[in-house]
């Protein structure tokens, strides 16, 4: 920050060029940022302003950029023409907005929607605001490379903020709507009715049970496979085939796992927790293999060679030298992998049901938090009077809250393990 200000009030630059482009570009920078921010707020709150105001807003911005462009012609002709072009586009938009009616129907093209000026102009505010800010940063630094850099970095920061926005919305909304519904009774009682009353205990216990099954099946298989890939076979043909298989398995859609369960496990074990657990284990397997292999890879070769040189066998080396320091990394991967699989709904779709009485039976149908949420969501439209529907919706929010909390806790645990045992070799 200090750096930027230092450059701005650099006397040499001020002396070299007139200060007018600086003032104008600073003005257009502030205005553009303001516009982008306003556009975001309008879209987020759906609190649209009157349509003809947009025209004035764009007109003001256009004039600002016109002034910036004209005043900066002395500094760099080519680049200031770019700015003049930008202001021309703004004027064109103002002209178009006065010449055409307030909404553009797409029906005549066969689309079942129409574009309202409210929406288009709010998006326009954001886009032109961002581009304008980036451009005026360039003028502010006399079109030097540094100005381009700040312009680009500004857009990248905005990019990151947009990426984080859904996360804020999801966590915020789920907490606001879901947290008030969490009561002791909700956490500890059976599902009653069609989910409109009672609690979610079977779903919580079911999710934990699935995690336990995954822990006993996916974790040994995953770590074992990682050990083979990383420690035993180097550059082998078999390794390439296995690695390819892991990559393919990682990409297999969750619904395909569901179909697989339906065709393979259901005839064997019925629609049961065992089926659900096995399928989720297969789903989590490639993630665990990948992260465990990463953890093993980070152990330097010299440690292994030292151990082997002392006369230890390969297995002794793995057991005593390689595994212990890579354990934090492996555990992190296991926690994240199991967490991701436990939140998955599609593989369980064919074996789950809404109403399960406690205690859940290993050979009985699956109840889990994600499938519970999905079923409640599916029932939102009908079945029962308004009060029941509202209660079901409240329970859906609370279920989402519990599920999200579990996932967040697992993520935090993984993070703590990784940070605490972080070792640089």
């Amino acid at each position: 920050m200090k750096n930027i200000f230092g450059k701005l009030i650099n006397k040499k630059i001020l002396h070299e060029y007139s200060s007018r482009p600086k003032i104008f570009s600073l003005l257009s920078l502030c205005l553009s940022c303001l516009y982008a921010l306003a556009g975001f707020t309008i879209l987020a709150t759906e609190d649209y302003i009157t349509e003809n105001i947009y025209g004035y807003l764009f007109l003001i911005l256009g004039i600002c950029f016109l002034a910036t462009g004209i005043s900066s012609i002395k500094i760099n002709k080519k680049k200031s023409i770019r700015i003049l072009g930008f202001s021309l586009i703004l004027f064109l938009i103002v002209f178009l907005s006065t010449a055409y009616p307030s909404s553009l129907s797409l029906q005549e093209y066969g689309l079942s929607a129409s574009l309202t000026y409210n929406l288009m102009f709010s998006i326009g505010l954001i886009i032109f605001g961002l581009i304008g800010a980036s451009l005026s940063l360039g003028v502010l630094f006399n079109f030097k490379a540094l100005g381009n850099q700040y312009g680009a970095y500004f857009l990248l920061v905005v990019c990151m903020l947009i990426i984080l926005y859904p996360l804020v919305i999801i966590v915020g909304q789920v907490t606001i709507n879901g947290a008030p519904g969490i009561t002791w009774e909700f956490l500890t009682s059976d599902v009653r009715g069609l989910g409109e009353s009672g609690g979610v205990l079977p779903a919580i216990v079911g999710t934990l049970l699935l995690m336990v099954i995954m822990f006993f099946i996916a974790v040994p298989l995953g770590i074992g496979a990682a050990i083979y890939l990383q420690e035993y076979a180097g550059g082998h043909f078999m390794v390439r085939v296995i690695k390819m298989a892991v990559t393919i398995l990682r990409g297999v859609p969750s619904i395909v796992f569901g179909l697989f369960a339906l065709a393979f496990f259901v005839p064997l074990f019925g629609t049961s927790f065992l089926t659900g657990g096995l399928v989720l284990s297969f789903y989590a397997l490639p993630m665990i293999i990948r992260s465990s292999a990463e953890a093993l890879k980070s152990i330097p070769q010299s440690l292994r060679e030292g151990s082997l040189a002392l006369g230890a066998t390969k297995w002794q080396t793995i057991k005593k030298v390689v595994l212990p320091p890579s354990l934090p990394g492996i555990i992190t991967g296991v926690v994240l992998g199991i967490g991701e699989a436990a939140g998955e709904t599609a593989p369980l779709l064919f074996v789950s049901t809404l109403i399960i009485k406690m205690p859940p039976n290993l050979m009985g149908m699956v109840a889990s938090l994600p499938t519970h949420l999905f079923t409640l969501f599916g029932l939102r439209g009908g079945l029962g009077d308004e009060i029941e529907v509202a209660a079901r919706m409240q329970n859906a929010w609370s279920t989402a809250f519990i599920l999200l909390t579990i996932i967040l806790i697992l993520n935090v645990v993984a993070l703590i393990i990784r940070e605490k045992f972080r070792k640089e070799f």
Partner: protein
Amino acid sequence: MIRKLSKEHIIQGIFLLIASFSIFIIFFIFFFLFKESIPAFIEVGGDIFSADFSNKLGLGGAIRGSLIVTGGALLIAYPLGIGGGIFLSEVASVWIRRILKPIIEVLAGIPSVIYGFIGAIILVPFLTDSFRMVSGFSLLAGGIIIGVMTLPIIISISDDSLKSVPRDIKEASLALGATPWQTTKKVTFPAASSGIFAGATLGIGKALGETMAVLMVVSAITRAPEPWFDIFESGPVLTSLIAGHWGEAYGLKVNVLFAAGVFLFIIVSIMSIISEFMQYRIEKKFKGG
């Protein structure tokens, strides 16, 4: 000595067996899916590519829907994701990176059913109002939600590819007097772009295979939108077709749903193989170069 050696061999054999388990799973999945879908391919025949699911049991409409949703998702996820990746690897300071990385991980870890739930309750009404649609449950909503869900993958792949560009190339550029941004734009990004592109195929696979969110924000109707580019209408998508119609399906319909699964599996696997192959070549390039 000989006994000890043979014990080592047994251990290695056990690990090999465990490691090959993934191959068995792939084989099993393909075998059982294909076995269940054979009747569909025989009896429906060429009609399987027609857009009419209700009468002819064709999957053409669903394949089209999948492509539209995936395309929309990539349009959103790519620019933002690559921008996020550049920010993380080139712009952010060490501590910002250490905060943002786990947050992106959380974004990737949120269950798809929650994305779908929020999408259906917040995004869909918003779209209904904004575009004056009859119903906001549409392919457009699906594309947006899937785009947000694909973001973390694209971000981390771009970040990894940019980070794996050898440092000396960047330093040479900086030493010549280029600003960090010029270096990123002209040197680092072009060098990493093949890696980012390889990761792109993984993103496509993930977007194609996403089920629950699509089911919840597009809904599982069987009528394909007319005309085909009407993204403001709801329509069938391969994944949501399977998930939404399994309950009421019987006889040949079940086999057709399995055939949809086979299509998905094959497309996504090809994507994975391409990305693996490209990443292998890139690794070789940087190591050799």
